[in-house]
C-alpha cells in the first residue's frame, strides 16, 4: 500500500478502517467509502442512523448548519467555518436541552441576583447591567461537553455530534464577580446557581439549572455577556445575556440568563447530580469539590484538542506541492503550547507554526507544509499540547455519557 507506513501502523490502519476485505488496487477509494464518506456533512465514524438523519438547515438568522435534531434545536457548525479562528455568529453551533425556548425581548428581560449567601437581592434590566458595571471582554471557546460524541466507539446515546459542537468568539459583557459583589457575597458562599429562561415541555421536566464553584464565579474571566463578536447575542446563542465560563465546557454557559443565586450548599438538581458527570479521577481536569457526593464527578474544563480544517479523509492532493496542514487548537484555559503534525501515522512529529495568540481561552491556529514528493497514501495527524503539558490522547478515554473526546485525528489522504 505505501512504503512510508510501518507494518504495525499499517495493520492498525487497516483494522481501524474496517476495510481489509475491500483493500486491493485502490486503497484510498476504500478509505473514501469508509471514512469521511459523507464529506459534506460529517465523518463516517458517527452512527449510520445519525449520518442518514442529518442535513443542512438554516435556522432563522443562521447560515445552514448541520441539523442533528429540530426540537430542542441542536445544530453543528460545518468544519469550513473553523478556517477562521473566530466563529461567525451566524455559523455558531446551537445546543438546547429543553424544547420550550422563549423569544426574549430586551425590554422584558431582567436578571435577578440573590440567594441565601447574598447580602441583598438585585434586579437588573439590560440597560442597568450594561451601565452599572465595568465592561469586560474575553475571547473564548465554547465547546459542548459532548462534542465528537458521535465518534465514540462503542457508541453511546445522546446527541451524536461530529466535530462542530463548538465555536470561538469575542464575548463582551460585565464580570459576574462585579454583579455578585454588588449583591454582597457572604462568607459561607459555596456555589453560584444559574438559570435561564428555557424550560421543559412538561412541568415535571427538570429545569436546566447549573452551578459553578464560587471561586470560578468570582474569577475575572467569568462574564455575563450580551455581545458576541461585536453584535448582540443571536437568539439561538442565548439573547439577551448568557454566562461565559472560559475554559469550562459549554454546559455551564447558561443561555438567556434570568437568575443568579449565591448559595451555601451544593446544587443537586438532575443537571448537576446526574447529567454532565464523569467517572471520578479518569481525567486530569480540575475537581468541582462541592459536587463530590457520588461515585462520579461533574465535568469541568475542556481537555486539550485540535482540529485539522484544511484536509478531509479521502481527499487527493497533488504531488510535488507541500500538503498544507492547517487547523485550530485549544484547551481548558492554560493556552496552547504547541501543535505537532505527523504525516507517517505518528512515527515522527514536526512542530507546526502557531498563529496569532488571542489569549489562553481562544482557538489558536496552526499551519505546516508537509512535503509530498512521492505519490501514495498518507495519514495526517495533528497533536496539540497545552501549557499544562497535557497532550491529546491516542486512545479514547471511554465514559458512559460520551464527553471529552480528544483522540488525535487521523486523516487519510492520497498524494497523486
Amino acid at each position: 500500500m505505501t512504503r512510508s507506513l510501518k507494518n504495525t501502523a499499517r495493520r492498525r490502519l487497516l483494522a481501524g478502517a474496517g476495510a481489509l476485505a475491500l483493500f486491493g488496487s485502490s486503497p484510498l477509494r476504500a478509505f473514501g467509502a469508509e471514512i469521511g464518506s459523507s464529506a459534506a456533512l460529517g465523518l463516517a465514524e458517527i452512527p449510520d442512523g445519525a449520518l442518514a438523519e442529518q442535513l443542512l438547515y438554516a435556522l432563522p438568522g443562521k447560515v445552514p448548519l448541520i441539523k442533528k435534531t429540530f426540537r430542542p434545536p441542536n445544530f453543528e457548525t460545518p468544519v469550513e467555518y473553523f478556517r477562521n479562528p473566530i466563529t461567525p455568529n451566524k455559523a455558531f453551533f446551537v445546543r438546547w436541552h429543553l424544547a420550550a425556548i422563549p423569544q426574549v425581548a430586551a425590554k422584558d428581560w431582567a436578571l435577578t441576583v440573590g440567594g441565601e449567601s447574598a447580602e441583598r437581592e438585585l434586579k437588573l434590566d439590560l440597560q442597568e447591567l450594561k451601565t452599572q458595571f465595568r465592561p469586560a471582554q474575553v475571547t473564548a471557546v465554547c465547546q459542548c461537553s459532548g462534542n465528537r460524541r458521535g465518534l465514540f466507539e462503542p457508541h453511546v446515546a445522546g446527541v451524536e455530534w461530529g466535530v462542530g459542537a463548538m465555536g470561538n468568539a469575542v464575548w463582551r459583557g460585565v464580570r459576574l464577580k462585579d454583579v455578585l459583589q454588588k449583591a454582597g457575597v457572604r462568607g459561607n458562599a459555596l456555589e453560584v446557581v444559574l438559570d435561564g429562561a428555557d424550560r421543559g415541555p412538561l412541568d415535571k421536566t427538570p429545569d436546566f439549572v447549573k452551578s459553578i464553584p464560587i471561586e470560578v464565579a468570582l474569577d475575572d474571566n467569568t462574564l455575563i455577556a450580551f455581545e458576541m463578536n461585536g453584535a448582540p447575542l443571536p437568539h439561538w446563542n442565548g439573547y439577551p445575556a448568557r454566562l461565559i465560563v472560559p475554559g469550562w465546557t459549554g454546559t455551564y454557559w447558561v443561555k438567556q440568563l434570568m437568575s443568579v443565586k449565591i448559595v451555601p450548599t451544593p446544587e443537586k438538581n438532575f443537571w448537576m447530580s446526574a447529567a454532565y458527570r464523569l467517572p471520578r479521577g479518569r481525567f486530569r481536569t480540575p475537581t468541582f469539590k462541592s459536587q463530590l457526593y457520588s461515585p462520579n464527578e461533574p465535568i469541568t474544563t475542556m481537555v486539550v484538542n485540535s482540529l485539522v480544517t484544511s484536509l478531509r479523509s479521502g481527499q487527493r492532493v497533488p504531488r510535488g506541492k507541500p500538503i498544507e496542514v492547517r487547523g485550530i487548537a485549544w484547551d481548558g484555559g492554560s493556552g496552547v503550547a504547541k501543535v505537532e503534525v505527523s504525516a507517517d501515522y505518528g512515527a515522527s512529529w514536526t512542530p507546526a507554526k502557531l498563529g496569532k495568540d488571542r489569549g489562553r481561552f481562544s482557538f489558536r491556529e496552526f499551519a505546516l507544509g508537509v512535503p509530498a514528493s512521492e505519490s501514495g497514501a498518507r495519514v495526517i495527524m495533528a497533536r496539540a499540547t497545552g501549557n499544562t503539558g497535557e497532550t491529546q490522547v491516542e486512545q479514547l478515554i471511554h465514559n458512559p455519557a460520551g464527553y471529552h473526546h480528544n483522540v488525535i485525528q487521523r486523516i487519510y489522504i492520497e498524494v497523486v
Partner: protein
Amino acid sequence: MKKTLALLALLAAQAAFAQESKIALKDGPGRDKAMQCVACHSLDYIPMNSRFLDKAGWTASVNKMINVFGAQIAKEDVEPIANYLAQNYGKPPAK
C-alpha cells in the same frame, strides 16, 4: 386512545419547523406508541441514536424519559415502545 390522539394533534402543532413534521418513523408494530415521544422532542432523536442500542439500552432510554423527564407514557407502553425501537432502530443482530 382518543385522549392520546388529541394530545398528539396538539403536540404536532408544536413542531418548531415544518421540516420536523417530515421525520417519519419506520412502519412496524408499536410505532404509534413510540410516536408519543414527540410530546417533548422531535423524532430525529430516535434514528440519530441508531443502530447501536440493544433492547436493554432502549428500555433504559424510555425509562429515563419517564422517570427523569416526566414523559406521560403509560407503564404498559414501555415494553412495546422498547420492542419497536430495538426492532427498527436497535443494534443489528451479530452475524
